[in-house]
């Protein structure tokens, strides 16, 4: 193994979450929720919050490291980092950046965090209400292409056309998240099961996305504490070691969704080159993966991400993407075992990262037996995208 690798050198020592709420329902300021998630992760790990010396986030999180470090009263700030890109494309990238900081000696104890309180800062999924659109936005907004669902739908439509994939494949992905949420009391959709009929009868948002193909919008906060592998072994929880991580995009993919129509390879989640680097760093392949958390901004992104991570060929999608194949504990590829962005919480994918760690620890509410390799994929179609593999001690 090359020195230039994260493999086995860093581990998740603690995870923390606030209660997850429907959008605009947060009972306290976003910054307070962010602090509470970080403190919960420290408690989970059994470390003093003042020992945090680095902060990493993504998606232009509003809670900046200086404000957090001053508020918590950490001894010394050594690392502060923001992964570029909107949405949840950068969630695993933030974990990779934090890991790299620890491996390189820039910091010893880095927290990756995300907090959202839309009622305090504005809703997602709304078109820009401005009189004029500059630059590339002039090429999309005047045509009524203004929201993530509308930007990403043509990518998925083309992929489904190219490979003769039907709506049932997307439905199975939505059904899987809702199925697992029914076992997870933290899930916002706990107690609200989804049936095939309910999916089929739900309204279209932007074809091929029905309502249930689209992520929720939520308020809350989540945090993950990373330390060196050696230190993690001495802490309270079973370590989830970072086996590999990768981020980026394919050729000429701009981060502005307003120009997504121009990406040379339109029908992609952007993971084709990125997943190759992930597996190369980990020294593993898709057949080694025991359980997958895959960011659902939209179900179609999951479809393409799973293909591009090598789990099945596009032509096999209709056979592979069936509920019985995707549910824990018996499915051949258990997927989004917490309920994911669709049914647990949309914390820009940090909840999915925490679930990937829980599967290594044996703490999931839909636990897969004997998990050694746990994959967590960040937001597809939203470059730079990112992805990460966690492993147990046995996987090292």
């Amino acid at each position, binding site marked *: 193994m090359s020195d230039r690798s994260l493999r086995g050198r860093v581990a998740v020592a603690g995870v923390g979450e606030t209660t997850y709420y429907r959008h605009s329902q947060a009972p306290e300021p976003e910054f307070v929720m962010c602090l509470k998630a970080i403190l919960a992760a420290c408690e989970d790990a059994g470390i003093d919050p003042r020992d945090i010396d680095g902060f990493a986030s993504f998606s232009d999180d509003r809670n900046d490291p200086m404000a957090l470090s001053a508020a918590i009263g950490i001894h010394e700030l050594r690392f502060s980092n923001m992964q570029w890109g909107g949405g949840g494309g950068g969630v695993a990238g933030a974990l990779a950046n934090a890991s790299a900081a620890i491996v390189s000696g820039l910091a010893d104890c880095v927290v990756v965090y995300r907090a959202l309180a839309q009622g305090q800062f504005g809703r997602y999924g709304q078109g820009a209400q401005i009189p004029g659109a500059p630059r590339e*936005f002039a090429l999309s907004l*005047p045509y*009524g292409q203004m929201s993530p669902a509308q930007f990403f739908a043509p990518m998925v439509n083309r992929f489904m056309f190219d490979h003769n994939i039907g709506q049932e494949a997307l439905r199975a992905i939505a059904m899987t998240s809702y199925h697992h949420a029914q076992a997870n009391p933290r899930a916002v959709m706990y107690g609200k099961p989804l049936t095939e009929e309910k999916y089929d009868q739900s*309204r279209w948002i932007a074809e091929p996305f029905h309502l249930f193909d689209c992520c929720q919008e939520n308020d809350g906060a989540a945090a993950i504490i990373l330390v060196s592998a050696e230190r993690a072994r001495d802490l309270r929880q079973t370590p989830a070691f970072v086996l590999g991580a990768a981020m980026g995009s394919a050729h000429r993919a701009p981060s502005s969704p307003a120009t997504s129509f121009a990406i040379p390879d*339109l029908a992609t989640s952007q993971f084709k080159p990125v997943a190759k680097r992930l597996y190369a760093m980990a020294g593993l392949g898709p057949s080694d993966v025991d359980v997958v958390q895959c960011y659902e901004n939209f179900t179609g992104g999951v479809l393409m991400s799973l293909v591009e991570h090598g789990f099945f060929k596009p032509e096999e999608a209709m056979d592979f993407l069936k509920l019985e194949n995707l549910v824990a504990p018996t499915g051949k590829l258990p997927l989004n075992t917490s309920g994911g962005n669709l049914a647990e919480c949309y914390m820009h994918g940090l909840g999915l990262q925490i679930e990937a760690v829980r599967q290594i620890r044996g703490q999931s509410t839909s636990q897969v037996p004997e998990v050694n390799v746990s994959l967590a994929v960040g937001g597809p179609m939203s470059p730079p995208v990112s992805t990460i593999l966690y492993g147990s001690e046995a996987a090292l």
Partner: protein
Amino acid sequence: MSSYILGNDGASPHGEAGKAAGSGGSSYLPEGLPAPLAHPAELYGPYWEGTRAEKLVVQRNSSTGAYQWPPQWIAHDTQTFDLEWTEVAPKGVIYSWTRVWHPVHPALKDACPYIIAVVELPHAGNIRMLGNLLGDPHQEVIIGSEVEAVFEHHDGAEPPYTLVQWRTVARD
């Protein structure tokens, strides 16, 4: 969402842009959506001036002839800055599409469904453009169909502008 889409340097208001198309009721979508601004002018001026004259004008690398769209400051194939503008035939094929049912802007409240098409221009290096697919919003959209541009003038807007829309070419 707006910060994700537009960053912090979103459009500055330019009068009553987009308020009303000159010949009433001729636009596919209702008035009130963000109007296109030819900004920055060096990058977007020639395109928007072209649409006013019912010409489709795009960017090309003057040394290699490689087309690129949307316009960029630099040629992506040679990393040089000697880009030129050239008129291309206003036609293409449908590469992908979506039919929008859920409005995300007040102006679209009663305008759904409507169709957004991604159109590829095989005669111009397979660059792609966006637009609405004119006609019945419930029509079956067939990827690979030939389309031609329709220049949708918004003469009453201040400043006036013209959108490039698309309609399916009737087959014999």
